[in-house]
Protein backbone atom coordinates (compact mmCIF):
# COMPACT_ATOMS: atom_id res chain seq x y z
CA UNK A 1 0.00 0.00 0.00
CA UNK A 2 1.50 3.31 -1.09
CA UNK A 3 0.62 6.49 0.65
CA UNK A 4 -1.06 9.20 -1.35
CA UNK A 5 0.25 11.84 1.01
CA UNK A 6 3.25 14.04 0.51
CA UNK A 7 6.46 12.29 1.50
CA UNK A 8 8.41 13.59 4.47
CA UNK A 9 12.08 13.79 5.39
CA UNK A 10 12.41 11.55 8.44
CA UNK A 11 15.15 10.72 10.91
CA UNK A 12 15.22 7.30 12.56
CA UNK A 13 17.33 7.22 15.73
CA UNK A 14 18.09 3.81 17.22
CA UNK A 15 21.30 2.16 18.45
CA UNK A 16 20.02 -1.20 17.21
CA UNK A 17 20.71 -1.93 13.55
CA UNK A 18 17.76 -4.30 13.19
CA UNK A 19 15.37 -1.62 14.43
CA UNK A 20 16.91 1.00 12.18
CA UNK A 21 16.51 -1.18 9.10
CA UNK A 22 13.01 -2.19 10.13
CA UNK A 23 11.81 1.37 10.60
CA UNK A 24 13.72 2.90 7.71
CA UNK A 25 12.64 0.32 5.12
CA UNK A 26 9.05 0.42 6.29
CA UNK A 27 8.94 4.20 5.93
CA UNK A 28 10.84 4.25 2.65
CA UNK A 29 8.29 1.78 1.32
CA UNK A 30 5.73 4.43 2.15
CA UNK A 31 7.56 6.98 0.01
CA UNK A 32 9.39 8.91 2.71
CA UNK A 33 13.01 9.94 2.56
CA UNK A 34 14.65 8.39 5.60
CA UNK A 35 17.97 8.96 7.32
CA UNK A 36 19.30 7.15 10.35
CA UNK A 37 21.43 7.90 13.40
CA UNK A 38 22.90 5.41 15.86
CA UNK A 39 22.80 7.52 18.98
CA UNK A 40 21.57 10.80 20.38
CA UNK A 41 24.73 12.72 19.57
CA UNK A 42 24.63 11.74 15.90
CA UNK A 43 20.93 12.54 15.83
CA UNK A 44 21.45 16.10 17.06
CA UNK A 45 24.25 16.65 14.57
CA UNK A 46 21.96 15.61 11.74
CA UNK A 47 19.04 17.63 13.07
CA UNK A 48 21.21 20.73 13.21
CA UNK A 49 22.63 20.34 9.72
CA UNK A 50 19.50 19.39 7.76
CA UNK A 51 15.82 20.06 7.99
CA UNK A 52 13.59 17.15 9.05
CA UNK A 53 9.82 16.78 9.22
CA UNK A 54 9.72 14.07 11.87
CA UNK A 55 11.98 12.08 14.21
CA UNK A 56 11.47 8.51 15.40
CA UNK A 57 13.47 8.32 18.59
CA UNK A 58 14.58 5.34 20.65
CA UNK A 59 14.84 5.93 24.41
CA UNK A 60 17.56 3.52 25.45
CA UNK A 61 20.82 4.44 23.66
CA UNK A 62 24.50 4.85 24.47
CA UNK A 63 26.33 8.22 24.09
CA UNK A 64 23.17 10.27 24.53
CA UNK A 65 19.80 8.70 25.23
CA UNK A 66 16.34 9.56 23.94
CA UNK A 67 15.44 11.75 26.94
CA UNK A 68 18.41 14.00 26.40
CA UNK A 69 17.70 14.33 22.69
CA UNK A 70 14.04 15.10 23.38
CA UNK A 71 14.87 17.69 26.04
CA UNK A 72 17.54 19.32 23.90
CA UNK A 73 15.15 19.58 20.97
CA UNK A 74 12.33 21.02 23.07
CA UNK A 75 14.62 23.74 24.41
CA UNK A 76 15.94 24.66 21.00
CA UNK A 77 13.89 27.26 19.14
CA UNK A 78 14.85 25.77 15.78
CA UNK A 79 14.27 22.11 16.65
CA UNK A 80 11.23 22.54 18.88
CA UNK A 81 8.81 22.37 15.98
CA UNK A 82 9.92 18.97 14.70
CA UNK A 83 7.52 16.31 15.95
CA UNK A 84 9.19 13.43 17.80
CA UNK A 85 7.68 9.96 18.05
CA UNK A 86 9.25 7.83 20.76
CA UNK A 87 9.88 4.18 19.96
CA UNK A 88 10.26 1.76 22.84
CA UNK A 89 9.58 -1.77 23.91
CA UNK A 90 6.36 -2.47 25.73
CA UNK A 91 8.02 -2.78 29.15
CA UNK A 92 9.34 0.78 28.95
CA UNK A 93 5.84 2.23 29.14
CA UNK A 94 6.70 4.42 32.15
CA UNK A 95 9.55 6.01 30.24
CA UNK A 96 7.24 6.61 27.30
CA UNK A 97 4.69 8.35 29.48
CA UNK A 98 7.45 10.60 30.78
CA UNK A 99 8.48 11.47 27.21
CA UNK A 100 4.95 12.30 26.13
CA UNK A 101 4.57 14.50 29.21
CA UNK A 102 7.83 16.24 28.31
CA UNK A 103 6.48 17.04 24.87
CA UNK A 104 6.98 14.07 22.55
CA UNK A 105 4.31 13.99 19.86
CA UNK A 106 3.44 10.30 20.13
CA UNK A 107 4.92 6.85 20.76
CA UNK A 108 5.17 3.46 19.11
CA UNK A 109 5.87 0.09 20.67
CA UNK A 110 8.63 -2.11 19.32
CA UNK A 111 8.52 -4.43 17.45
CA UNK A 112 6.72 -1.83 15.40
CA UNK A 113 3.46 -2.75 13.75
CA UNK A 114 3.69 -1.45 10.16
CA UNK A 115 0.09 -0.28 10.02
CA UNK A 116 0.42 1.69 13.25
CA UNK A 117 3.77 3.05 12.09
CA UNK A 118 2.25 4.40 8.89
CA UNK A 119 -0.79 5.83 10.67
CA UNK A 120 1.18 7.61 13.40
CA UNK A 121 3.81 8.95 11.06
CA UNK A 122 1.28 10.27 8.57
CA UNK A 123 -0.85 11.81 11.31
CA UNK A 124 2.17 13.57 12.80
CA UNK A 125 3.36 14.81 9.41
CA UNK A 126 -0.11 16.13 8.64
CA UNK A 127 -0.29 17.96 11.96
CA UNK A 128 3.13 19.45 11.37
CA UNK A 129 2.11 20.56 7.88
CA UNK A 130 -0.94 22.37 9.29
CA UNK A 131 1.13 24.02 11.99
CA UNK A 132 3.73 25.10 9.44
CA UNK A 133 1.02 26.60 7.25
CA UNK A 134 -0.52 28.49 10.16
CA UNK A 135 2.88 29.73 11.21
CA UNK A 136 3.65 30.91 7.68
CA UNK A 137 0.39 32.82 7.64
CA UNK A 138 1.11 34.52 10.96
CA UNK A 139 4.68 35.22 10.02
CA UNK A 140 3.45 37.76 7.50
CA UNK A 141 2.09 39.82 10.37
CA UNK A 142 4.19 38.97 13.37
CA UNK A 143 7.53 37.76 14.61
CA UNK A 144 8.35 34.09 14.93
CA UNK A 145 7.92 34.28 18.74
CA UNK A 146 4.45 35.73 18.44
CA UNK A 147 3.43 33.24 15.74
CA UNK A 148 4.64 30.39 17.95
CA UNK A 149 2.85 31.83 20.95
CA UNK A 150 -0.39 32.13 19.00
CA UNK A 151 -0.19 28.52 17.92
CA UNK A 152 0.71 27.34 21.43
CA UNK A 153 -1.97 29.32 23.23
CA UNK A 154 -4.54 27.99 20.77
CA UNK A 155 -6.23 31.38 20.29
CA UNK A 156 -8.23 31.46 23.47
CA UNK A 157 -10.73 34.19 22.77
CA UNK A 158 -10.61 35.76 26.24
CA UNK A 159 -9.29 39.30 26.69
CA UNK A 160 -6.95 40.80 29.25
CA UNK A 161 -5.26 44.04 30.21
CA UNK A 162 -1.73 44.40 28.93
CA UNK A 163 0.84 47.18 28.95
CA UNK A 164 1.84 47.88 25.41
CA UNK A 165 2.70 50.52 22.82
CA UNK A 166 0.22 51.11 20.05
CA UNK A 167 1.31 52.53 16.71
CA UNK A 168 -0.81 53.96 13.93
CA UNK A 169 0.76 54.75 10.59
CA UNK A 170 -0.70 56.24 7.47
CA UNK A 171 0.38 57.64 4.15
CA UNK A 172 -0.02 61.42 4.54
CA UNK A 173 0.47 62.44 0.95
CA UNK A 174 1.24 61.14 -2.50
CA UNK A 175 3.40 63.31 -4.72
CA UNK A 176 2.94 62.69 -8.41
CA UNK A 177 4.76 64.30 -11.26
CA UNK A 178 2.13 63.34 -13.73
CA UNK A 179 -1.48 64.44 -13.64
CA UNK A 180 -3.11 61.06 -13.82
CA UNK A 181 -2.89 58.35 -11.18
CA UNK A 182 -2.28 54.89 -12.50
CA UNK A 183 -4.24 52.35 -10.37
CA UNK A 184 -1.79 49.57 -11.15
CA UNK A 185 1.08 51.74 -10.02
CA UNK A 186 -0.70 52.71 -6.79
CA UNK A 187 -1.44 49.12 -5.79
CA UNK A 188 2.11 48.20 -6.65
CA UNK A 189 3.35 51.07 -4.52
CA UNK A 190 1.15 50.02 -1.59
CA UNK A 191 2.40 46.46 -1.73
CA UNK A 192 6.02 47.54 -1.73
CA UNK A 193 5.33 50.05 1.00
CA UNK A 194 3.57 47.52 3.27
CA UNK A 195 6.32 44.96 2.74
CA UNK A 196 8.90 47.51 3.94
CA UNK A 197 6.83 48.65 6.91
CA UNK A 198 5.95 45.16 8.10
CA UNK A 199 9.58 44.24 7.90
CA UNK A 200 10.51 47.18 10.12
CA UNK A 201 7.77 46.40 12.64
CA UNK A 202 8.46 42.70 12.88
CA UNK A 203 12.19 43.28 13.29
CA UNK A 204 11.40 45.41 16.37
CA UNK A 205 9.11 42.71 17.78
CA UNK A 206 5.86 44.39 16.83
CA UNK A 207 2.73 42.74 15.48
CA UNK A 208 0.53 44.24 12.78
CA UNK A 209 -3.05 43.71 13.79
CA UNK A 210 -5.13 45.96 11.58
CA UNK A 211 -4.90 47.28 8.06
CA UNK A 212 -7.25 49.77 6.48
CA UNK A 213 -6.58 51.40 3.14
CA UNK A 214 -3.04 52.73 3.26
CA UNK A 215 -2.94 52.79 7.04
CA UNK A 216 -2.31 50.15 9.65
CA UNK A 217 -2.06 49.57 13.37
CA UNK A 218 0.70 47.70 15.14
CA UNK A 219 1.22 46.67 18.72
CA UNK A 220 4.45 46.25 20.67
CA UNK A 221 4.68 44.32 23.93
CA UNK A 222 1.73 42.01 23.24
CA UNK A 223 0.69 39.18 22.79
CA UNK A 224 4.12 38.48 24.31
CA UNK A 225 5.02 40.97 27.01
CA UNK A 226 8.27 42.92 26.65
CA UNK A 227 9.50 45.52 29.13
CA UNK A 228 11.03 47.65 26.37
CA UNK A 229 7.94 47.93 24.15
CA UNK A 230 8.12 51.76 24.15
CA UNK A 231 11.69 51.87 22.93
CA UNK A 232 11.03 49.11 20.37
CA UNK A 233 8.02 50.93 18.95
CA UNK A 234 9.96 54.19 18.56
CA UNK A 235 12.90 52.42 16.96
CA UNK A 236 10.51 50.72 14.54
CA UNK A 237 9.06 54.15 13.67
CA UNK A 238 12.55 55.57 12.99
CA UNK A 239 13.33 52.57 10.83
CA UNK A 240 10.09 53.08 8.90
CA UNK A 241 10.96 56.71 8.14
CA UNK A 242 14.42 55.65 7.00
CA UNK A 243 12.96 52.96 4.75
CA UNK A 244 10.42 55.37 3.24
CA UNK A 245 13.25 57.80 2.48
CA UNK A 246 15.12 55.08 0.57
CA UNK A 247 11.90 53.99 -1.10
CA UNK A 248 11.23 57.54 -2.31
CA UNK A 249 14.69 57.81 -3.82
CA UNK A 250 13.99 54.65 -5.82
CA UNK A 251 10.55 55.87 -6.83
CA UNK A 252 11.96 59.24 -7.94
CA UNK A 253 14.61 57.52 -10.05
CA UNK A 254 11.81 55.72 -11.88
CA UNK A 255 9.70 58.84 -12.09
CA UNK A 256 7.09 57.19 -9.88
CA UNK A 257 4.86 58.41 -7.05
CA UNK A 258 6.57 59.39 -3.80
CA UNK A 259 4.98 59.30 -0.38
CA UNK A 260 5.05 60.96 3.02
CA UNK A 261 3.97 59.04 6.08
CA UNK A 262 2.81 59.89 9.58
CA UNK A 263 3.29 57.73 12.66
CA UNK A 264 1.62 58.15 16.04
CA UNK A 265 2.51 56.13 19.14
CA UNK A 266 0.86 55.97 22.54
CA UNK A 267 1.69 53.59 25.38
CA UNK A 268 -0.21 52.34 28.36
CA UNK A 269 -2.82 49.86 29.38
CA UNK A 270 -4.85 48.30 26.59
CA UNK A 271 -7.42 45.57 26.48
CA UNK A 272 -6.08 42.86 24.21
CA UNK A 273 -7.45 39.59 23.04
CA UNK A 274 -8.75 37.65 20.12
CA UNK A 275 -12.05 38.75 18.68
CA UNK A 276 -14.11 37.03 16.08
CA UNK A 277 -15.15 33.41 15.96
CA UNK A 278 -13.21 30.19 16.25
CA UNK A 279 -12.87 30.20 12.48
CA UNK A 280 -11.70 33.69 11.96
CA UNK A 281 -10.11 35.63 14.75
CA UNK A 282 -7.81 38.61 14.94
CA UNK A 283 -5.69 39.89 17.76
CA UNK A 284 -7.35 43.11 18.74
CA UNK A 285 -6.45 45.91 21.10
CA UNK A 286 -8.92 48.47 22.33
CA UNK A 287 -9.02 51.20 24.96
CA UNK A 288 -7.97 54.80 25.52
CA UNK A 289 -4.37 54.16 24.56
CA UNK A 290 -5.47 52.89 21.16
CA UNK A 291 -7.71 55.92 20.58
CA UNK A 292 -4.93 58.25 21.66
CA UNK A 293 -2.41 56.67 19.29
CA UNK A 294 -4.86 57.15 16.44
CA UNK A 295 -5.44 60.83 17.39
CA UNK A 296 -1.71 61.47 17.68
CA UNK A 297 -1.14 59.95 14.27
CA UNK A 298 -3.79 62.25 12.74
CA UNK A 299 -2.00 65.18 14.32
CA UNK A 300 1.25 64.46 12.41
CA UNK A 301 -0.24 66.23 9.41
CA UNK A 302 -0.94 69.41 11.41
CA UNK A 303 2.35 69.31 13.28
CA UNK A 304 4.29 68.52 10.10
CA UNK A 305 6.47 66.01 11.88
CA UNK A 306 6.45 62.36 10.78
CA UNK A 307 6.67 60.79 14.26
CA UNK A 308 4.69 61.92 17.30
CA UNK A 309 4.49 60.12 20.64
CA UNK A 310 2.75 60.60 23.98
CA UNK A 311 4.35 61.36 27.35
CA UNK A 312 4.40 57.75 28.59
CA UNK A 313 6.14 56.54 25.44
CA UNK A 314 8.67 59.35 25.78
CA UNK A 315 9.62 58.39 29.36
CA UNK A 316 12.45 55.92 29.59
CA UNK A 317 13.62 56.31 25.99
CA UNK A 318 17.37 55.91 25.63
CA UNK A 319 19.27 59.16 25.05
CA UNK A 320 20.35 58.28 21.50
CA UNK A 321 16.75 58.86 20.41
CA UNK A 322 16.29 62.58 19.87
CA UNK A 323 13.00 63.89 21.24
CA UNK A 324 11.53 67.40 21.35
CA UNK A 325 8.47 68.55 23.29
CA UNK A 326 5.58 69.76 21.19
CA UNK A 327 3.61 70.83 24.24
CA UNK A 328 0.18 69.83 25.51
CA UNK A 329 -2.38 69.22 22.78
CA UNK A 330 -6.10 68.81 23.23
CA UNK A 331 -7.11 65.98 20.97
CA UNK A 332 -10.60 65.49 19.71
CA UNK A 333 -12.66 63.45 22.14
CA UNK A 334 -10.23 63.96 25.03
CA UNK A 335 -11.04 65.97 28.19
CA UNK A 336 -7.45 66.81 28.97
CA UNK A 337 -4.58 68.08 26.89
CA UNK A 338 -1.90 65.47 26.26
CA UNK A 339 1.81 66.21 26.41
CA UNK A 340 3.03 65.29 22.95
CA UNK A 341 6.57 64.84 21.69
CA UNK A 342 8.32 64.86 18.34
CA UNK A 343 10.80 62.09 17.59
CA UNK A 344 13.50 63.40 15.26
CA UNK A 345 14.44 61.09 12.42
CA UNK A 346 18.17 60.59 12.10
Amino acid sequence: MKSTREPGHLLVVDDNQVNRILLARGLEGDGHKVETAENGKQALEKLRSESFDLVLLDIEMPEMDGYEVLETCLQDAELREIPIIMTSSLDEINSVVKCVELGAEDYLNKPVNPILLRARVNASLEKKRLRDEQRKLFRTFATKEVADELIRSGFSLGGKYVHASVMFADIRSYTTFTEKEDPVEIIDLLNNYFALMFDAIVSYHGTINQMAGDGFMAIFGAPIHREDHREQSVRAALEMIKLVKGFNIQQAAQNKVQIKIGIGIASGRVIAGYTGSQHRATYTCVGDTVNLASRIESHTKVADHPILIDQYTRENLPTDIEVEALGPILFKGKQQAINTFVVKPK
Partner: protein
Amino acid sequence: MPLIDKSTFEELKQMSGADFINELIDAFLDDGPHMLTQMETALINKDGVSFRRNAHSLKSNANTFGATELGALAKELELMGRENNLEIGDRLEVLKGSFEKVAEELKGMRS
Protein backbone atom coordinates in the same frame (compact mmCIF):
# COMPACT_ATOMS: atom_id res chain seq x y z
CA MET B 1 8.09 -23.60 22.44
CA PRO B 2 9.08 -23.12 18.78
CA LEU B 3 12.40 -21.38 18.19
CA ILE B 4 10.72 -18.86 15.94
CA ASP B 5 7.08 -17.96 15.97
CA LYS B 6 6.09 -18.41 12.33
CA SER B 7 3.26 -15.88 12.27
CA THR B 8 5.46 -13.09 13.66
CA PHE B 9 8.15 -13.97 11.16
CA GLU B 10 5.70 -14.04 8.25
CA GLU B 11 4.30 -10.67 9.26
CA LEU B 12 7.80 -9.26 9.29
CA LYS B 13 8.53 -10.76 5.90
CA GLN B 14 5.34 -9.42 4.37
CA MET B 15 6.19 -5.89 5.41
CA SER B 16 8.36 -5.40 2.39
CA GLY B 17 9.52 -8.57 0.79
CA ALA B 18 12.56 -10.76 0.29
CA ASP B 19 15.43 -8.23 0.07
CA PHE B 20 14.28 -6.63 3.22
CA ILE B 21 14.06 -9.84 5.28
CA ASN B 22 17.55 -10.90 4.22
CA GLU B 23 18.97 -7.54 5.21
CA LEU B 24 17.28 -7.84 8.59
CA ILE B 25 18.46 -11.40 9.18
CA ASP B 26 22.02 -10.39 8.27
CA ALA B 27 21.89 -7.48 10.70
CA PHE B 28 20.65 -9.81 13.41
CA LEU B 29 23.36 -12.39 12.70
CA ASP B 30 26.04 -9.67 12.67
CA ASP B 31 24.95 -7.84 15.79
CA GLY B 32 23.94 -10.78 18.00
CA PRO B 33 27.45 -12.14 18.74
CA HIS B 34 28.63 -8.58 19.37
CA MET B 35 25.88 -8.03 21.94
CA LEU B 36 26.72 -11.31 23.66
CA THR B 37 30.42 -10.38 23.84
CA GLN B 38 29.50 -6.98 25.27
CA MET B 39 27.43 -8.72 27.94
CA GLU B 40 30.37 -10.93 28.84
CA THR B 41 32.67 -7.94 29.09
CA ALA B 42 30.11 -6.07 31.16
CA LEU B 43 29.95 -9.01 33.54
CA ILE B 44 33.71 -8.93 34.02
CA ASN B 45 33.72 -5.16 34.49
CA LYS B 46 30.62 -5.32 36.70
CA ASP B 47 29.02 -2.80 34.36
CA GLY B 48 25.28 -3.21 35.01
CA VAL B 49 24.34 -0.46 32.53
CA SER B 50 26.12 -2.00 29.56
CA PHE B 51 24.90 -5.47 30.55
CA ARG B 52 21.30 -4.32 30.68
CA ARG B 53 21.55 -2.29 27.47
CA ASN B 54 22.91 -5.20 25.42
CA ALA B 55 20.41 -7.64 26.89
CA HIS B 56 17.73 -5.12 25.99
CA SER B 57 18.88 -4.89 22.36
CA LEU B 58 19.09 -8.64 22.02
CA LYS B 59 15.62 -8.99 23.49
CA SER B 60 14.27 -6.39 21.13
CA ASN B 61 15.75 -8.15 18.09
CA ALA B 62 14.58 -11.57 19.25
CA ASN B 63 11.03 -10.27 19.59
CA THR B 64 11.19 -8.68 16.15
CA PHE B 65 11.84 -12.10 14.57
CA GLY B 66 9.43 -13.95 16.80
CA ALA B 67 12.26 -15.75 18.64
CA THR B 68 10.12 -16.00 21.73
CA GLU B 69 12.38 -18.10 23.94
CA LEU B 70 15.49 -16.07 23.17
CA GLY B 71 13.50 -12.92 23.86
CA ALA B 72 12.34 -14.22 27.24
CA LEU B 73 15.87 -15.25 28.25
CA ALA B 74 17.27 -11.86 27.24
CA LYS B 75 14.52 -10.06 29.08
CA GLU B 76 15.27 -12.01 32.25
CA LEU B 77 18.90 -10.85 32.07
CA GLU B 78 17.89 -7.30 31.20
CA LEU B 79 15.79 -7.14 34.36
CA MET B 80 18.65 -8.54 36.46
CA GLY B 81 20.94 -5.92 34.93
CA ARG B 82 18.42 -3.21 35.74
CA GLU B 83 18.60 -4.22 39.40
CA ASN B 84 22.37 -4.36 39.06
CA ASN B 85 22.21 -8.02 40.00
CA LEU B 86 25.02 -9.62 38.03
CA GLU B 87 24.95 -12.93 39.94
CA ILE B 88 23.46 -14.61 36.91
CA GLY B 89 24.80 -18.16 37.21
CA ASP B 90 24.74 -19.95 33.87
CA ARG B 91 22.08 -17.75 32.33
CA LEU B 92 24.44 -16.09 29.86
CA GLU B 93 25.58 -19.51 28.60
CA VAL B 94 21.94 -20.54 28.19
CA LEU B 95 21.29 -17.30 26.30
CA LYS B 96 24.25 -17.94 23.98
CA GLY B 97 23.02 -21.45 23.28
CA SER B 98 19.58 -20.15 22.44
CA PHE B 99 21.05 -17.49 20.16
CA GLU B 100 23.09 -20.12 18.24
CA LYS B 101 19.98 -22.20 17.62
CA VAL B 102 17.94 -19.19 16.51
CA ALA B 103 20.79 -18.02 14.26
CA GLU B 104 20.98 -21.44 12.55
CA GLU B 105 17.25 -21.45 12.03
CA LEU B 106 17.21 -17.92 10.63
CA LYS B 107 20.02 -18.70 8.17
CA GLY B 108 17.75 -21.32 6.66
CA MET B 109 14.89 -18.86 6.49
CA ARG B 110 16.67 -16.39 4.24
CA SER B 111 14.79 -15.96 0.98
